[in-house]
């Protein structure tokens, strides 16, 4: 879905009130629309019936271990950074059945789960979400045995990205090179201005969708303003990782006293891994029917902070929080490079915001790698 040369038309202007027309177009193509809404005190992706469900006029305040929404009273729909989840739950399901088995017959009868083919259009994916999706694509689809469930959902995904014009205090995508501007992985990318959106297409179907709306060119002034607003969101970021490849520095410091220190604060709850848009660990579990005649075998998100993650026949490879936090950080920012050719961090800042004790990945990385805290 990466941008193809020649497809990208010049940018057009989508008045705010025409966003619903874009949603209508996507629905007519068979897509269910998904977008950010205010739910349970946070901005979260959910199915959208109409455009007025977007978080109009809302701002997010994110800090270490805290997230709060504030009403600004304006017409902005995307003037916030992000919520607790990116696109991950919509492609890599938090829990899904892999197969079922009937144990009544003399021979066990196995039945693989069917994969649902569903078209989903997500409106409001950010550059960090798309960078994370590219990593998850590689994990689930890049090997010898591509994952069928992930592939089906990915195949049916239409992405309307939104370039960030607001950074939260926990954002640091500029330092990881993943934002705030989107580069690829979208069908349409929007940048929000006072009266609407500067829109660009990133694929043929994206260009078709915009063409159908019969929009006027955005013009140089709006394009320049859009660029400036996105650049300002990058410049406003206050956090940064101390480098893009920390692999050598982390593995040279496996005995650093900071691991003990952070282990004293970390609760090993796994929130960081569950909100992380690139973490892919999951466990496989079994649920037996009430009458004991059949069983459902399912997978469910797991994290390297959980008790059983690294246990083998009674031996616990990572018995303490120190080794679990170290595993998480040295994998995410270290060995990830060998696996995926880049770091596993896209700078979304979710692990900082949603950590109940406010552990900050940028501070920990800087401390362990011996860099001054940025």
């Amino acid at each position, binding site marked *: 879905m990466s941008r193809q040369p020649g497809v990208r038309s010049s940018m057009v202007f989508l008045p705010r009130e025409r966003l619903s027309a874009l949603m209508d177009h996507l629905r007519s193509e068979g897509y269910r629309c998904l977008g950010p809404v205010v739910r349970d005190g946070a901005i979260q992706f959910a199915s959208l019936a109409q455009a007025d469900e977007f978080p109009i006029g809302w701002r997010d305040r994110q800090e270490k271990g805290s997230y709060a929404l504030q009403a600004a009273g304006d017409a902005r729909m995307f003037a916030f950074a992000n919520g607790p989840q990116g696109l991950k739950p919509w492609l890599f399901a938090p829990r899904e059945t892999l*197969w079922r088995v009937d144990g009544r017959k003399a021979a066990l009868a196995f039945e693989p789960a069917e994969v649902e083919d569903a078209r989903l259009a997500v409106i409001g994916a950010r550059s960090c979400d798309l960078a994370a999706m590219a990593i998850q694509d590689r994990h689930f689809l890049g090997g010898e045995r591509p994952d069928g469930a992930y592939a089906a959902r990915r195949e049916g995904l239409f992405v309307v990205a939104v370039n960030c014009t607001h950074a939260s205090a926990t954002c640091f995508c500029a330092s990881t090179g993943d934002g705030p501007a989107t580069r690829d992985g979208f069908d349409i990318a929007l940048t929000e201005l006072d009266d609407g959106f500067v829109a660009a297409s990133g694929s043929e179907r994206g260009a078709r969708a915009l063409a159908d709306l019969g929009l006027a060119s955005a013009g140089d002034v709006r394009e320049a303003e859009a660029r400036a607003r996105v650049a300002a969101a990058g410049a406003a970021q206050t956090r940064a990782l101390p480098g893009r490849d920390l692999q050598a520095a982390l593995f040279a410091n496996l005995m650093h006293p900071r691991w003990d220190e952070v282990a004293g604060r970390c609760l090993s709850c796994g929130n960081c891994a569950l909100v992380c848009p690139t973490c892919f660990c999951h466990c496989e579990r079994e649920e037996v029917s009430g009458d004991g005649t059949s069983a459902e075998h399912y997978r469910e998100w797991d994290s390297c902070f959980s008790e059983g993650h690294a246990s083998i026949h009674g031996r616990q490879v990572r018995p303490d929080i120190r080794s679990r936090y170290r595993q998480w950080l040295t994998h995410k920012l270290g*060995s990830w490079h060998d696996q995926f050719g880049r770091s596993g961090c896209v700078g979304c800042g979710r692990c900082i915001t949603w950590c109940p004790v406010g552990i900050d990945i940028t501070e920990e990385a800087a401390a362990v790698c011996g860099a001054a805290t940025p």
Partner: protein
Amino acid sequence: MRGRNPLNGIDSHCPEGARIVGRVDESDSIFTLRLRPLAPSPSPRFVPGQFNMVYLFGVGEIPISIVSDPESDVLLDHTIRRVGRVTEGLARLQPGDCVGLRGPYGRGWPMDRARGRDVIIVTGGLGCAPTVAVINYIIHRRSEFGRLSIVQGVKRAHELIYRDRYEAWRGVPDTRVLLAADEGDTSWPWHVGLVTDLFDDLAYDPSRTLAMLCGPEGMMVVAVRRLLRAGLPEESIFLSMERNMQCALGLCGHCQYGAKFVCKDGPVFAYPEVKALLGTRGY
């Protein structure tokens, strides 16, 4: 709209039924199940060192190395130690009962590289199981390999399994079998002490030898050190690693060892691939 995805993705998680056609109690906690797949598909032959996922109805799956002869693709032997929920349940099964089976998975021992060379197999505890297929493979092609040394250690004398096999292997031409128990007893005629003590008795030419190690990591660390000191090049030493494996497809993440997914990049690794972290607690 519902439909089966054309990719083999999710289906590759799904086991097939297999019937238990034989069972051997190897020790008080170790047993071998002989399995016959119910639908003998054009099943891929396995490479010594690979493993299957064995499923117990209603409980779950575990990775178990394949012990049987790689030449036979109808019967699969799995030697299992009773240590957890799945294995405790498997231990109660009898011939005629059914389990689920999928595999083979992973990268096995480098049999092609071993051809024409002396082979030293060093195992500890149940680490001997993943090397039985190697030994059978070599014995069936005896002239294609050099001297074979089989070195196995156990903690306590009564924990030695495959006693009959070790006796039989002693009679194979150009083959040495050396056994050690940390704690001997009256029935133990062999070495009492560490398995690595036996290395002094091994005669081999380091330049044309391949070593295959499987067992507790502490044992493998010491064995590697001894072999390197004897002049064996790093790339002639192979280790079978064990980590938590749940999907066996390189997806679930539990078996990661640094950047390696043990289930698909291993479980057999050349020493240079794992040496950076070998013996480091927490990885």
